């Protein structure tokens, strides 16, 4: 029982990332009718927002401390980060320690801007083009984005540790009288993802803006006829989807050190998630994201990998193929979406 | 026995009864029109005939064989050709190529891996396609990209493509919808000519009464998914129920 719960928990963090990316993909696809192959790159850019902030906060100046000597007897050079000099050592250290969560603050405007520029500068011109063209141009964009990141940050994964207070493990089983030890940050990630998903759904459900967007997803032409400028709203929607992917990326850094091709790795799986969930269905995307994340975690257990070696690497694809063959519209897909 | 026999067909979409107990018999070598107000179920009925929809109950027999459960291409191979409301042609291909494809379908069936001989070596197909183009008065447009044809010519091409297969039943779905008067009249003339020159049964769904009364020999009036009356055009014109159905729509 403990083991099962642990595997479910293990699946939740990856599932959260899948769900968040798939949610954005679905939003973009549902509203704009565009298949965005650069969505994984947005996730990656989010992660590198955290990396950048961490580097900026660690910018230091050197002073020579005459009172201390290094092992050669020379005066010791001490590096002091600027933030520590400005805010005092304690507050400065705290800021550096909390770089990843703080990166959320800078990531939101950056991602909104990236999303806005992407939609106005590129995607807009592809609404009327075939899906194949959309795939190809966003695929090209994804390559460009990841190569730019690679140019500035190199090809190796970069460690982005969580704050000390959220590092380490906690016994999450205590509440229900069981012994399940689990990394704190992953729990944070899951809660964060739940919050964002909840936020998006609430936004779509309870605001006029969200209502128009939902109506637009269902029937774009009619809403257009009502004289509502949906294009503008869809631009904003694209920005939001980009921000969601970016934030998912920011917080994912401590779980897996970011590298430039992490976006592509997640993108393929997120597409599979979207298809399994049902193209154009937001709840489907979230549900499938978590389900597949958990499934993958079960397939990664020693028992599973010794029975069928490597099953953890193919399980998602296998499930996707089976789902598509038995339920071509996916788990919660609507009729008429992408069916010519 | 008509060439097309529809018996007791029902079709529901969720709570909506689209077709309720439809019976229809189309006699061979006649022009049979199906008319009715918007939402009367005309298109649903047509889709049940060509394999796009499967009725919940009832039977659809073509020339003594059931069409139910067959794919559209199989039904076409049985001898039913369909013309769409907005012309469905191969827009990326030339007019000549458009005309050759149904000829291939007629000669080779639903699939043939004919990958090595060149199209140019298929003399019989070329001859056939050219003669239909002549019939359609489109021979001079044979090298044009079909997407650049006028609306009326697209319709003409589509009808020609269907005729090149020598179907026994030609189904027309509002063939003049959205057309200018001149194009409509041209299409009527073309259909009249087809009716006079060929042994062919035509079933036509139409909104435009001018078209219907210029062509049809029998008319079925559909309202709310059920046939109201079936009669000759002369009798339909004065029929009280028909007037009611149409007046009811406009009120």
């Amino acid at each position, binding site marked *: 029982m403990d083991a099962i719960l642990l595997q479910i928990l293990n699946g939740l963090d990856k599932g959260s990332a899948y769900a968040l990316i798939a949610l954005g993909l679905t939003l973009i696809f549902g509203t704009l009718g565009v298949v965005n192959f650069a969505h994984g790159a947005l996730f990656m850019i989010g992660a590198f927002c955290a990396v950048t902030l961490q580097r900026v906060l660690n910018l230091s100046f050197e002073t020579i401390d005459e009172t201390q000597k290094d092992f050669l007897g020379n005066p010791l050079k001490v590096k002091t980060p600027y933030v520590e000099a400005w805010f005092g050592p304690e507050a400065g250290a705290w800021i550096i320690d909390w770089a990843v969560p703080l990166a959320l603050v800078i990531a939101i405007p950056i991602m909104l801007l990236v999303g806005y520029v992407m939609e106005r500068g590129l995607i807009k011109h592809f609404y009327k083009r075939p899906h194949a063209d959309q795939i190809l141009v966003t695929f090209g964009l994804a390559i*460009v984005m990841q190569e730019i990141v690679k140019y500035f940050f190199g090809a190796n994964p970069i460690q982005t540790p969580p704050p000390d207070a959220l590092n380490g493990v906690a016994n999450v089983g205590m509440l229900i009288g069981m012994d399940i030890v689990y990394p704190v940050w992953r729990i944070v990630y899951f809660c964060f993802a739940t919050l964002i998903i909840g936020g998006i759904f609430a936004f779509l459900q309870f605001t006029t803006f969200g209502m128009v967007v939902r109506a637009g997803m269902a029937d774009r032409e009619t809403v257009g006829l009502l004289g509502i400028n949906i294009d503008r709203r869809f631009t904003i929607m694209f920005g939001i989807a980009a921000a969601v992917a970016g934030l998912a990326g920011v917080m994912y850094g401590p779980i897996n050190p970011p590298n430039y091709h992490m976006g592509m790795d997640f993108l393929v799986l997120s597409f599979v998630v979207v298809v399994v969930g049902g193209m154009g269905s937001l709840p489907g995307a979230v549900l499938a994201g978590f389900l597949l994340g958990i499934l993958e975690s079960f397939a990664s257990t020693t028992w599973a990998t010794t029975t069928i070696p490597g099953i953890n690497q193919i399980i998602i694809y296998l499930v996707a193929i089976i789902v598509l063959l038995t339920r071509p519209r996916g788990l919660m897909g609507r009729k008429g979406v992408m069916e010519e | 026995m008509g060439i097309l026999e529809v018996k007791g067909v029902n079709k529901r979409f969720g709570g909506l009864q689209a077709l309720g107990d439809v019976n229809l018999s189309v006699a061979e070598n006649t022009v049979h029109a199906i008319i009715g107000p918007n939402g009367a179920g005309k298109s649903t009925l047509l889709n049940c005939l060509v394999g796009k929809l499967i009725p919940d109950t009832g039977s659809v027999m073509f020339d003594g064989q059931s069409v139910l459960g067959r794919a559209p291409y199989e039904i076409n191979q049985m001898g039913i050709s369909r013309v769409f409301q907005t012309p469905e042609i191969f827009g990326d291909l030339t007019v000549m190529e458009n005309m050759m494809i149904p000829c291939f379908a007629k000669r080779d069936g639903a699939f043939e*891996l004919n990958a090595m001989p060149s199209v140019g070596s298929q003399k019989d197909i070329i001859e056939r396609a050219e003669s239909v183009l002549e019939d359609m008065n489109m021979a001079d447009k044979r090298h044009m990209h079909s997407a650049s044809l006028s609306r009326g010519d697209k319709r003409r091409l589509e009808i020609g493509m269907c005729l090149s297969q020598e179907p026994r039943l030609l189904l027309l779905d509002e063939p003049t919808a959205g057309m200018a008067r001149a194009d409509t009249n041209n299409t009527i003339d073309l259909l009249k000519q087809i009716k006079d020159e060929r042994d062919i049964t035509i079933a036509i769904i139409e909104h435009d009464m001018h078209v219907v009364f210029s062509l049809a020999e029998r008319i079925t009036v559909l309202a709310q998914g059920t046939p109201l009356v079936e009669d000759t055009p002369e009798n339909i014109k004065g029929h009280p129920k028909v007037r009611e159905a149409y007046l009811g729509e406009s009120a």
Partner: protein
Amino acid sequence: MFGLDKKDKSLLAIVAILTLLAPFILNPFPTDSAMAQFNAGYPDLMQRFVIFGIFAVGFNILFGLTGYLSFGHAAFLGVGSYSAVWMFKLLSYNIIPAIILAVIIAGLFSLLIGFVSLRRSGIYFSILTLAFAQMSFALAYSVLSNPKFNLTNGETGLQVYNDDPQILQGANAPDLPHLFGLSMRSTYTMEIGPWAFDFNAGYYVCAVIMMVAFYLAIRIFRSPFGMMLRAVKSNQQRMNYTGLNTRPYTLAAFVISGMYAGLAGGLMAAMDPLAGAERMQWTASGEVVLMTILGGAGTLIGPVLGAGFIKYFENIFSKINDNVLHGWFAFLPDGLEDFVVTIIHPFVGKGWHLTLGLMFMMVVIFLPGGLVEGGQRLAAWVRGKRNKGKDKTTGKTEPAE
């Protein structure tokens, strides 16, 4: 002869002349000159030109004609490579059985994947093929390389070892892939003055096979079958209501293009008897899409051009480093020189992929018809200038019949 019309015959002739004379054409600069770095006439690169040419020509039969965008064709290439290496291991280093098996296995594999993927169209199809390819990659990389059942040798890659059976390997046969004794590596270098031209056996084997593959592609394009495939792209609804079953047509196109990919993979292994899983990764599938689009999807010559273009620039761009750049811009004043080098630096050397990505976007945005369309537009523009005032010429070529 060949059952082609005049235009296609001259196209085939041009391709034949270009490939056969490639060792000369690609080595225009003397070996010692500064420009020698732009030479591409060495065996390894020339082999890649034609092998990827075959891959792209095959991909174009699917994508260019039917419009079905597969993102998983690298899987068939990889399967072809593995099959070929297995033939080397089991039978002998003769490349004929290896290539035949590569084509057959890739064909069967694509039949399986195509049968499932083609149940859906549009974006679903692309994602399904992508999923299949990633699954094949994972299978090759880890699942099928466990001690109990080692089909792919995982990360190391599949290669021939001394203790492999090689039951047909003759005592005197070369210990490398060969064609009835002619080693694929044997190269004759012809030196004329300061120039050196390499004639490599492997390259010529690939070149001849590519010409055959290209010829078959022309036949397919001009056949009723090819016309049906274009009809599938144009209007599936009309196809269905014209009594044509689109499924077997698309499946046949899929399998044919899969066999081309397998052939390319088999040849790759024949040039270098090694097969690795990275060949199957989806970025590799993306590359062939790129070649086809860049050259001109749906045109005959486009994919060959695209493959050559990308492989040439990949090679040249990756070789340019800062020293080379400084050499080029030495004539500029110092500050300006450094500035120019700094600007260009991210796009060359290891930054080649950035250039590739940008190029890809530019082509899709501005030139959806690829290089072929670009050439046609240019030709039309030149003609238009020359005939100013005379009849206007159209940029479009006469549609094929």
